[in-house]
């Protein structure tokens, strides 16, 4: 079995290498058939990566502990679903998933671009193949999932923290996102190689970028939900380098999704868009590097990691090649037009881009600060929550405001009178909300008040856009309001899908800003003792213990009351995993429909005398964050949904453009 897996990876490496060399030579020598053969090699590389992956899945399912990877990450007792998810539980499997997703995307790119007879395809193959060569090489030579050993009787089991449904879905989605950013990068590079300065590469990759960006966004929210339920400290995001690693490429991709619209409409920002796509792809490699190399624990452990130096080398190579190519093609990339006014749709997009990139780079600075400070001053120092929160406010609040402003401002040059008319509605909403919040005493946190006022403004402006659009469509076509509404969204999926995503971001902002109003209480309780937290009364009743398939589960029984009303019993606890020799906190979370928040109870400690230490948090509005995830997905799907009419229009536009 293991031989088959190893062989599949070697074949995959060979095919990728062939696609790189033959694909490049075909371009130099202008040999069309060789170019087609290189494209086929990429598709075949996907097939062999798939064979390798199937071998690993089969080995996992059959508990084949003669594979080091299987023995290290699973055990006979591990439930079936988690046995499958152990595929990406360790480094080698994660790399294999990267390769599988990458070659999968590449095969899809080849198939769809052929159907559309895209002239860019031959130019896109070498960049895609380059990345595939790197990952296949790592899997063959440096970090193979198919290393064998004399099979032990049982495996070591999966880290209990990873035994959570969200952890089954979170890594593959993140990889779909990380790896997906390879596609727009490859198209951008292909366009530069082909000396095409038009928007063909952007049109070709819009949907790819959206898919990657959506997966990355949803994946991060699932990760946050996992941290919230599984790590059990009552929060969902802690600016951990691993979390930042996924946030940074998402921010860069968000900037890219906005700025490409300016290039499509006005032919501006060509160089900027290429820089963004290089940044996004570079950060996605950097993110994989961060999580896998151990560099952040210290520079010293980095040199010991088997894959760290290789990754760093590859990132440097990719950045050098990309930026070098961009520099060489600069004369081709002059804008056709200039910014006409600082009050225009383009200008708001530009501000949005600057803020997103500034936020992204300050996070990057914070992440690498320990390394920089150690290199420069000889002593490492770290920045933590306050640093990131400061910049999130400084750059995030204006971003929030812009999200409400941009849809109201016209392209090219906005007149103040038209601005005033469209502002009345949203600004009125925001002012009303601000007054109500002030009366309720939300002024205690000026930042929170500002965030909520801006949020109201954005929602007002989105609502206004929908109402205005529906009215216009109805006066044009007649019919009911509902018909006009669906026709409006159906004909401008990208725009109105975008607004739905904006609404999701507002929900997210409201949920996150709600943490300013969190309450935390902690106490050691004997049986029958009480703990009061933000209107709740918790009474500790005693502990129970039960055995599950692979763990001993300790639970504290805690009765919950509010305003004299009995709300039932919650059971925070800890699971003890004998095979893995580990503990896992299992907090009790009780949602409250009124505040859209949670009562979150953690069993910190259980003492031999029967007493326990309980920590209870009341997190208002936190459930809006998860709701935001659903709205985000819905908005993205609306924007993503194929729109044949638009496709045709764009294709015609670029088919006529000079190459």
């Amino acid at each position, binding site marked *: 079995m293991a031989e088959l897996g190893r062989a599949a990876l070697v074949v995959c490496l060979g095919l990728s290498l062939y696609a790189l060399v033959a694909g490049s030579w075909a371009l130099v020598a202008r040999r069309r058939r060789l170019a087609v053969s290189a494209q086929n090699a990429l598709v075949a590389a996907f097939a062999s990566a798939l064979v390798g992956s199937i071998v690993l899945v089969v080995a996992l399912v059959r508990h084949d502990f003669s594979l080091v990877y299987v023995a290290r990450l699973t055990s006979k007792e591990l439930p079936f679903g988690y046995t499958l998810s152990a595929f990406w539980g360790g480094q080698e499997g994660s790399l294999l998933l990267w390769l599988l997703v990458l070659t999968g995307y590449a095969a899809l790119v080849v198939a769809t671009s052929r159907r559309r007879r895209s002239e860019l395809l031959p130019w896109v193959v070498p960049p895609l193949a380059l990345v595939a060569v790197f990952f296949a090489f790592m899997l063959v030579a440096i970090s193979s999932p198919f290393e064998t050993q004399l099979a032990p009787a049982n495996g070591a089991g999966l*880290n209990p923290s990873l035994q959570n449904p969200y952890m089954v879905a979170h890594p593959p989605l993140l990889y779909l996102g990380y790896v997906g950013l390879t596609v727009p990068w490859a198209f951008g590079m292909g366009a530069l190689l082909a000396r095409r300065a038009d928007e063909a590469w952007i049109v070709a990759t819009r949907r790819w970028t959206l898919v990657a960006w959506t997966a990355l966004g949803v994946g991060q929210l699932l990760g946050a939900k996992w941290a919230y339920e599984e790590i*059990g400290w009552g929060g969902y995001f802690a600016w951990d380098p691993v979390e930042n690693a996924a946030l940074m490429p998402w921010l860069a991709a968000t900037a890219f999704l906005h700025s490409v619209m300016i290039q499509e409409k006005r032919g501006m920002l060509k160089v900027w868009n290429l820089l963004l796509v290089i940044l996004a792809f570079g950060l996605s490699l950097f993110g994989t590097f961060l999580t896998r190399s151990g560099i952040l624990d210290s520079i010293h452990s980095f040199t010991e990691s088997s894959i760290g130096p290789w990754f760093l080398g590859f990132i440097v190579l990719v950045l050098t090649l990309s930026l070098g190519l961009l520099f060489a093609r600069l004369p081709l990339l002059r804008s056709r037009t200039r910014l006409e006014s600082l009050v225009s749709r383009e200008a708001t997009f530009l501000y949005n881009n600057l803020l997103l990139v500034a936020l992204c780079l300050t996070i990057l600075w914070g992440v690498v600060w320990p390394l920089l400070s150690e290199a420069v001053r000889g002593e*490492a*120092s*770290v*920045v933590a929550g306050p640093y990131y929160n400061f910049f999130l406010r400084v750059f995030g609040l204006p971003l929030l405001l812009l999200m409400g402003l941009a849809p109201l401002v016209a392209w090219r040059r906005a007149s103040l009178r038209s601005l005033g008319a469209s502002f009345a509605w949203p600004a009125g909403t925001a002012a009303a909300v601000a007054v109500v919040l002030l009366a309720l005493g939300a002024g205690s946190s000026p930042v929170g008040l500002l965030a909520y006022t801006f949020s109201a403004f954005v929602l007002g402006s989105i609502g206004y856009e929908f109402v205005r659009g529906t009215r216009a469509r109805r006066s044009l076509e007649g019919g009911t309001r509902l018909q006009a509404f669906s026709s409006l969204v159906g004909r401008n999926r990208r725009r109105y899908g975008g607004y739905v995503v904006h609404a999701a971001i507002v929900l997210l902002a409201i949920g996150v800003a709600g943490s300013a109003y969190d309450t935390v209480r902690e106490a050691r309780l004997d049986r029958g003792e009480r703990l009061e937290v933000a209107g709740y009364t918790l009474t500790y009743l005693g502990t129970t213990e039960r055995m599950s398939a692979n763990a001993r589960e300790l639970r504290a029984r805690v009765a919950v009351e509010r305003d004299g009303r009995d709300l039932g019993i919650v059971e925070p606890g800890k699971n003890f995993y004998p095979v893995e*020799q580990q503990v896992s906190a299992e907090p009790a979370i009780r949602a409250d429909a009124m505040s859209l928040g949670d009562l979150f109870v953690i069993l910190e400690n259980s*003492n031999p005398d029967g007493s326990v230490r309980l920590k209870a948090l009341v997190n208002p509005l936190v459930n809006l964050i998860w709701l935001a995830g659903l709205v985000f997905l819905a908005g993205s799907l609306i924007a993503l949904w194929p729109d044949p009419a638009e496709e045709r229009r764009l294709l015609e536009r670029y088919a006529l453009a000079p190459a």
Partner: protein
Amino acid sequence: MLALSVAAVLAVFLVYVSFAGGGTPAVEPSELKGRAEVVVLSGQVVVGSVQTSGEVTRFRLRDVKGTATVPVTYAGGLPDQFKAGRDLRVNGQLRQGVFVGEPGTMVTKCPSKYAPKQRSS
């Protein structure tokens, strides 16, 4: 226009960095000597050193690569991944030769990185 905006962003950044300083020093036990300020201490929990009395945990932390150790007391809830032999990070300061950790600041490495040491082949 672009230059101005970039300058504004940079200015905000520099103002913050100059007021808030360059972060908290991150040290290992061997670098702890003679320091009184709050630091982020990272190291490996020495096997056999962990003692719990009531809700206070005492253990020794060792340089990840090295032999220097320091006694640590920690009065907060321990993270799930806490275990002898694990690498962790905790904020706190040295008081009379004992590193007193701030409750709630202890973090162990991301579980995705918990692969046992690879045998060098």
